[in-house]
């Protein structure tokens, strides 16, 4: 896993509540058997005017030149609700997103982000609203997210965010969590023996 620390980027404003994983990546793309290449399908229904993805919807923020290369997404409450499909964070990562700042995240999606080196940050509504407004009015305006300092900085503001310490450490170090768990082999074996499993 590639360590995640500091991200400096302009921001995609997608300030809506309840953007579910069906919207982030519709089912017709779930038949793929690799993790790669989902970025072009991200938010398919609102991003393209046709099923074949040949006619981009100019109203969709992802199609607007000013936001195409951004690594930070701003959104509302309950982002990533619904299906557990990890294809949604794979699509976000493949599009180039490494930080999502929102008013709240669905549980499974939050865990899936952490497993893909995407940093989900929850900030107060007024800060999220202000960041979204700023991204809309000044599309190129950058925001700095510093995971080691746990800060989101823009203009003269420095906002602190919280994240459980172990999640922070895993992201900062790009830990292979499965490899780490497998070091606990003896404890797992002892549990199986104790419970006769």
């Amino acid at each position, binding site marked *: 896993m590639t360590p995640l620390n500091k991200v400096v980027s302009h921001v995609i404003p997608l300030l809506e509540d309840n953007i*579910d994983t069906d*919207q982030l990546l519709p089912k017709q793309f779930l038949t793929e058997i690799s993790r790669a290449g989902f970025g072009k399908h991200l938010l398919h229904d609102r991003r393209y005017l046709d099923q074949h993805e040949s006619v981009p919807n100019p109203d969709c923020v992802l199609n607007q030149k000013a936001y195409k290369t951004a690594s930070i997404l701003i959104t509302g409450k*309950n982002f990533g*609700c619904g*299906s557990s499909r990890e294809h949604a964070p794979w699509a976000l990562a493949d599009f180039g997103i490494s930080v999502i700042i929102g008013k709240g995240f669905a549980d499974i999606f939050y865990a899936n982000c952490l497993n893909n080196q995407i940093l989900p940050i929850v900030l107060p509504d007024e800060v999220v609203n202000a960041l979204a407004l700023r991204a809309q009015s000044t599309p190129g305006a950058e925001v700095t997210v510093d995971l080691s300092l746990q800060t989101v900085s823009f203009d003269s503001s420095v906002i602190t965010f919280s994240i459980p310490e172990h999640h922070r450490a895993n992201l900062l170090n790009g830990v292979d*969590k*499965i490899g780490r768990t497998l070091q606990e082999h003896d404890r797992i074996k002892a549990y199986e023996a104790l419970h006769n*499993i």
Partner: protein
Amino acid sequence: MGQTLYDKLWNKHYIGDVDGDGLLYIDRHLIHEVTSPQAFDGLNQYGRRVRRPDLTIATMDHSISTRSTSLDACGPKNALQLKTLVENCKQHGIVLYPVGDANQGIVHVMGPELGLIHPGMTVVCGDSHTATHGALGTLAFGIGTSDVEHVLASQTIRQSKAKNMRVVFSGKPGTGVVAKDLILALIGKIGHAGGTGYVIEYSGDTLSHLSVEGRMTICNMSIEAGAKAGLIAPDDITLAYLKGKPFAPKGEAWEASCLAYKALHSDADAVFDEEVHIDVSRLAPQVTWGTNPGQVAGIDQVIPSPDSFDDALMTASAKKALAYMALTEGTAFSDIPISHVFIGSCTNSRIEDLRAAADIARKGHVAKGVKAIVVPGSAKVKEQAETEGLDEVFKTAGFEWRLPGCSMCLGMNDDVLHEGDRCASTSNRNFEGRQGRGSRTHLVSPAMAAGAAIAGHFVDVRTL
């Protein structure tokens, strides 16, 4: 201080702390074709093996045809995904129930009906509706593919402990009011994200009126309230359901297991972080009108005015939903014509669901212009329904009788809706585009879906 059932299940499976996460042992890992291929890829990439193939069970459900048992029936991509599951299971020694097998079915229907799920277990699956299994007193939840890989490799999962919520259903539901209506009403009350961060324990005297199938419908939709899991303490109904199932404990082991199962309940002095009470005795059959399961009302109500909500965000959300759904406030549900009916999904495709739908189907014929399909949840449900003659009831009434699978709930096969189609669906999600781009989904119970098929519009099944 006493412990909740969730606390007890957590403690029982807690191996220890790993870098700040709780490491939990997983007793049953269910896999299917959609969320497992990348997990097996990851294992192969690192040269890791499946730690406990004997605790892992695979089936095919999401990507399969409901018209043909050929793996190639839905095109080359679906076929490759299905054949990849076959290969992965063969390579790692995992039992697979493929299309055509007598045990095949939707993962959350197949598992319990085979007796693979026992009270007190931890159960995971790369599918958000895994909470279904909580109806048997298990801690069951959906996970992403990276965690599927983690469980395959280690038979454990790393978790943070969730908060405890207790939902108390009280009263006896009226005729025509079923588990689906109870859970929709709950989500309507606490909201689409009201359970985020919680494990919900369902309790109350109403549960004594519900079968395990009905309880599964309730636990299944816990995720639609945002909850990590939903669970119900085992009782005599649970034990009667499990007894004699192919993979249930037998003989002396059964007797010993029953004692352990009965100890699985929250202590009287357990403290919940949140409590919600719902009196269901006056509840009407529910119909969703919006684009999340919390946007729901009784069949005897009308489409609400967005301005009727206290919360500005809910007002905005309702306005957006009504625009997508092409509905106007004040409209009676009986004035909303439908074009499609889907009876199926891990929420409502069990035998009692099909019986309830068939009871309504006997009263008429699918209305002109309406396409209605019935998709049993598993090969066993299909067989049972056919033994009871339900297939003939449906076919005579103009419904299509299909092969088991997830089907139109998410439409990974050719069972998809098109722009502008309006569907009365017994599934679990009415998100924008869920059943097909631009399609409109109304979530209802099986009887309500069958009623809508016959009337051509929503109808109060209590009047039929």
